């Protein structure tokens, strides 16, 4: 291993002969000239010195009547001096620097963050369709243009930002976590029940409520109509107003819960044998020497590194290791308690999901059962839920919907 710091600093090894070498050393010491690696071999002394301090030795050599000879020169300064006439060497340095600069002009890496529903491949496809690909000029990349294209292509993206650093672009995406995109609130609509149950709570802001608290509702029933009838004094309809109905509604309903797991399940029993395959990937050129026999069944864990210069200059060279862990497929049966734990967890997960959507759980009556080859978890969940949706294809209030 070359010590880079000492290589830059350099050193000179000097052979010393003379009547009083100790005096020479002590005078150097008194003049604060640092000597090191002092050796005594067969009547001659050798020592090393920093090249900068070499000329300070001259008067001391004269004073003590010693004789010196430079044995070895080591360091960057001497190296450059030695190869000063080697034009190709200098040209090589220049070409290397130029090549590195040339590499920085291209796009080598595309990173994506924040996308869950939209896969990396989907984004890559859009990029490729818009002529954004690895190896293109960084200058040609218009971040705002990419952002616009991505927003147009995917409705679920609520926010997107493209950042170009070095030879890499990073696409930050924020997706819409709502199930549906809310339509404009001023569009005419009805509010319709999405489940069977009993209306538990209703506050109408706009529209005509057709049901009141305690009424039975069926799936698809209009709860709040978007049509407001205008009556005259004799209670005949003289006009109809179409509005976007808006209300807070809770419906008490029973949900049929049904979950099951198979009694017999497969799992991987790792044998502990691990095989490591190292690989290098340069552009599309892939080298991965594999030694020995392959395992019959194995999991692969790949650790990939991309070579980069500095913090953000990514080069198209990947290297890494693939760890193949051998396993044997085993089958086993769940016991009643194990199955109970899993099914209970599933149920809790389901109930938590409901709670996050604003559903109150009033009660639950779920029982565990066992059939031929599976454990079941069935029953009813009594809950109060905002189970309604807006229907924009509006019916008539007179019942001809």
């Amino acid at each position, binding site marked *: 291993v070359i010590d880079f710091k000492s290589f830059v600093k350099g050193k000179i090894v000097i052979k010393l002969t003379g009547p009083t070498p*100790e005096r020479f050393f002590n005078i150097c010491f008194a003049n604060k000239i640092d000597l090191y690696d002092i050796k*005594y071999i067969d009547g001659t002394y050798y020592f090393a010195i920093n090249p900068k301090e070499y000329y300070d030795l001259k008067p001391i050599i004269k004073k003590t009547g010693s004789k010196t000879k430079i044995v070895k020169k080591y360091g960057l300064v001497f190296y450059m001096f030695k190869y000063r006439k080697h034009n190709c060497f200098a040209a090589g340095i220049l070409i290397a620097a130029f090549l590195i600069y040339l590499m920085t002009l291209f796009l080598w890496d595309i990173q994506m963050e924040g996308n869950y529903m939209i896969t990396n491949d989907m984004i890559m496809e859009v990029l490729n369709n818009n002529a954004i690909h690895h190896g293109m000029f960084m200058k040609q990349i218009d971040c705002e243009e990419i952002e616009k294209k991505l927003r147009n292509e995917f409705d679920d993206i609520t926010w997107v930002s493209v950042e170009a650093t070095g030879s890499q672009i990073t696409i930050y995406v924020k997706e819409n976590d709502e199930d549906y995109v809310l339509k404009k609130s001023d569009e005419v609509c009805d509010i319709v029940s999405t489940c069977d149950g009993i209306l538990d709570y209703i506050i109408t802001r706009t529209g005509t409520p057709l049901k009141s608290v305690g009424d039975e509702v069926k799936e698809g029933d209009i709860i709040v109509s978007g049509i407001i009838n205008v009556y005259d004094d004799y209670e005949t309809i003289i006009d109809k107003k179409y509005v976007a109905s808006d209300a807070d509604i809770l419906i008490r309903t029973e949900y049929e819960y049904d979950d099951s797991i198979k009694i017999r399940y497969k799992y991987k029993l790792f044998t502990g044998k691990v095989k490591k395959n190292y690989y290098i990937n340069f552009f599309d050129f892939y080298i991965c020497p594999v030694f020995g026999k392959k395992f019959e069944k194995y999991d692969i864990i790949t650790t990939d590194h991309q070579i980069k210069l500095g913090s953000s200059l990514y080069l198209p060279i990947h290297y890494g290791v693939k760890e193949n862990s051998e396993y044997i497929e085993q089958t086993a049966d769940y016991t009643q308690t194990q199955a109970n734990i899993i099914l209970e967890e599933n149920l809790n997960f389901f109930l938590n999901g409901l709670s996050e959507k604003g559903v109150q759980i009033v009660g639950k009556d779920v029982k565990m059962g066992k059939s031929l080859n599976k454990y079941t978890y069935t029953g009813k969940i009594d809950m109060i839920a905002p189970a309604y949706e807006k229907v924009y294809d509006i019916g008539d209030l007179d019942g001809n919907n």
Partner: protein
Amino acid sequence: VVKSSSIINILGNNTIIIENFKTIMSYKSDKIKVKAKDKYLTIYGSKLFIEYYNNEEIKITGRFEQIQFEVLSD
């Protein structure tokens, strides 16, 4: 660095670091004599080698066989 006396660190039988030393009296590959603050220190051994010395300390390595102190009379 303690002013009044030298600090001598001996690591095993192959390294010695002397702080607050004055001068090298003599140096051969089997014997080094160093003047410290108020004493002479002589190291006998083989393949003795001065790794570095500066105005604070001296480091000597090699196979030491004997280390001898000689307190200055004055």
